[in-house]
């Protein structure tokens, strides 16, 4: 199959073209000559630039620092939740679930990248998504506490995903009307994704709740474990309230009714009681940068390579 030349093949593309191998062998693509054209290329993520054609100027009268702080909240929620889902890689209960959890993690990672990029634009620092993800310390992260709790078992993963995606879908749905065209565009993309995440979590909640005695017990305990984190989701931070008043963001306290209705319906179908655990003292404050030790450990891992090689390009 290889060329009978007197000189070494100059490149793979050259040798493939010269010898015209079997049509089915052409999937061997040239590598050495094409790398420059695809520097920004990412495959398999369903990621295309949702900002194409969107005006990135700040809307009239909006304070850039406040908008940036708001973008960090929504971006960090997605980034840290994605990380906890990434931890399922090679540990899922079946292969279909490997694919599904990775898919959800990818969607959230995509949302995080867009929100963080917007944050760096809005505060005028020009910090990139990577500057913000890898070179902030835990106290500068603005995510809710729900997403940083350790991975847990599959029931915990599903309970957390159900709560998170039900809340986030309600939020993104309203954010599509944002006066900031960038946030509106990110939200429009995110709504479709998170609607699928919520469906996926709801289906598993029903399967596990109405499955075996063991799965019912585990699902019930997982909901009890997740529940103390829910109150923070609906407690408006000053920045969120201000962004909502300016028509840019969403006041999370307005989302509770929709959340309760959806969760109520899913739990009824799953034959699970609604948890009555209240917010746990000390759980909250994520929006102000108050976090658990688990976030420190998560960031130490996530940021390890980037911080070990300052000035490197990846």
């Amino acid at each position, binding site marked *: 199959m290889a060329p009978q030349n007197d000189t070494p093949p100059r*490149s793979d593309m050259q040798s493939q073209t010269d010898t015209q191998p079997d049509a089915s062998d052409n999937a061997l693509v040239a590598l050495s000559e094409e790398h420059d054209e695809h520097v920004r290329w990412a495959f398999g993520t369903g990621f295309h630039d949702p900002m194409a054609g969107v005006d990135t100027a700040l809307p009239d009268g909006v304070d850039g620092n406040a908008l940036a702080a708001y973008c960090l909240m929504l971006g960090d929620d997605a980034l840290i939740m994605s990380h906890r889902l990434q931890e399922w890689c*090679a540990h899922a209960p079946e292969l279909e679930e490997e694919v599904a959890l990775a898919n959800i993690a990818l969607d959230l990672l995509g949302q995080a990248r867009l929100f963080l990029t917007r944050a760096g634009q809005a505060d005028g620092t020009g910090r990139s998504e990577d500057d913000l993800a890898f070179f902030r310390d835990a106290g500068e992260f603005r995510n809710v506490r729900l997403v940083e709790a350790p991975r847990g078992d599959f029931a915990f993963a599903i309970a957390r995903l159900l709560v998170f995606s039900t809340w986030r879908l309600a939020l993104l749905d309203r954010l599509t009307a944002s006066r900031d065209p960038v946030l509106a565009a990110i939200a429009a993309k995110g709504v479709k994704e998170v609607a699928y995440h919520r469906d996926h979590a709801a289906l598993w909640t029903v399967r*596990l709740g109405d499955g075996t005695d063991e799965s019912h017990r585990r699902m019930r305990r997982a909901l009890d474990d997740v529940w103390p984190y829910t109150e923070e989701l609906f407690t408006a931070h000053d920045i969120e309230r201000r962004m909502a008043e300016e028509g840019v963001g969403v006041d999370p306290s307005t989302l509770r009714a929709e959340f309760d209705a959806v969760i109520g319906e899913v739990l009824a179908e799953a034959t699970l009681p609604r948890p009555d655990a209240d917010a746990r003292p000390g759980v909250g404050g994520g929006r102000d940068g108050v976090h658990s030790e688990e976030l420190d450990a998560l960031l130490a*891992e996530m940021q390890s390579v980037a911080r070990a090689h300052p000035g490197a390009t*990846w």
Partner: protein
Amino acid sequence: MAEQNALAEHFERTIERDQRIEPRDWMPDAYRKTVLRQVAQHAHSEIIGMQPEGAWITRAPSLRRKAILLAKVQDEAGHGLYLYAAAETLGGDRMELTERLIAGAQKYSSIFNYPTLTFADVGVIGWLVDGAAICNQVPLCRSSYGPYARAMIRICKEESFHQRQGYELLMTMMRGTDAQREMVQDAVNRWWWPSLMMFGPPDAESTHTAQSMAWKIKRHTNDELRQRFVDMTVPQAEALGVTLPDPDLRWNPERGHYDFGEVDWDEFRRVISGDGPCNAERIAVRRAAHEEGAWVREAAAAHAAKRARRAKEAA
């Protein structure tokens, strides 16, 4: 007996004409067993292969690299799914095959028993390991067993993306800091020989090759594919600016191919038989996922049974 002969003749003619054997066609038991073994080993390799790279997803040094790597590892789970589905058309059961894997009764590619020590390994796995996999797999798109051939077409398309992302990562790192260039060279040094082992033992020692070639389950010998991979990779290494760790590697104008040194076949045999650096760990992780997920799979089955019963009662 006459009927049996007619079936065997039809099978032979189908193979001769380069047509596909389909699940409902008659096939010799030995053919079924050989294809099933090959497809199952390939499926296991995809699933075990998620681990060495998957370990770097949470540590990827940029969000773009994280997305690419996550998508890649997700593809591998998808490949495992198609391949187990192809195995099921031959009477293999995914659950039984998985149990044979974690019992050590079925093999997977020896390459995944080597550790991934730095982020450069992610790039080198894409470039060399996926590159070698593509050399092995592209001819399998013409495998005589239809469901396997069709699965391979889709898998090869995705694998070529994987190889490109790996090479592109290495190109980017080579333009970075000295430390990054050293990481890339170190990873190349560690993965080069194991990549050559991916084509299997030399033809003279390969027990299955002759029959598999006759049945068109395999289209080229191990040594032919290894040579093709070396010829393809040397110019890529030059473009990248790395050295391949083989003092005997040089162009041979008479053969029109690169000559290269002898693979350490003793190491290959030890790794394949369970004595590699990470064999125990890879199986332990797969076993843990399988066992810890048992209650989930049981719940899904119990729920499906309840729904079916309720639907029947309502009807």
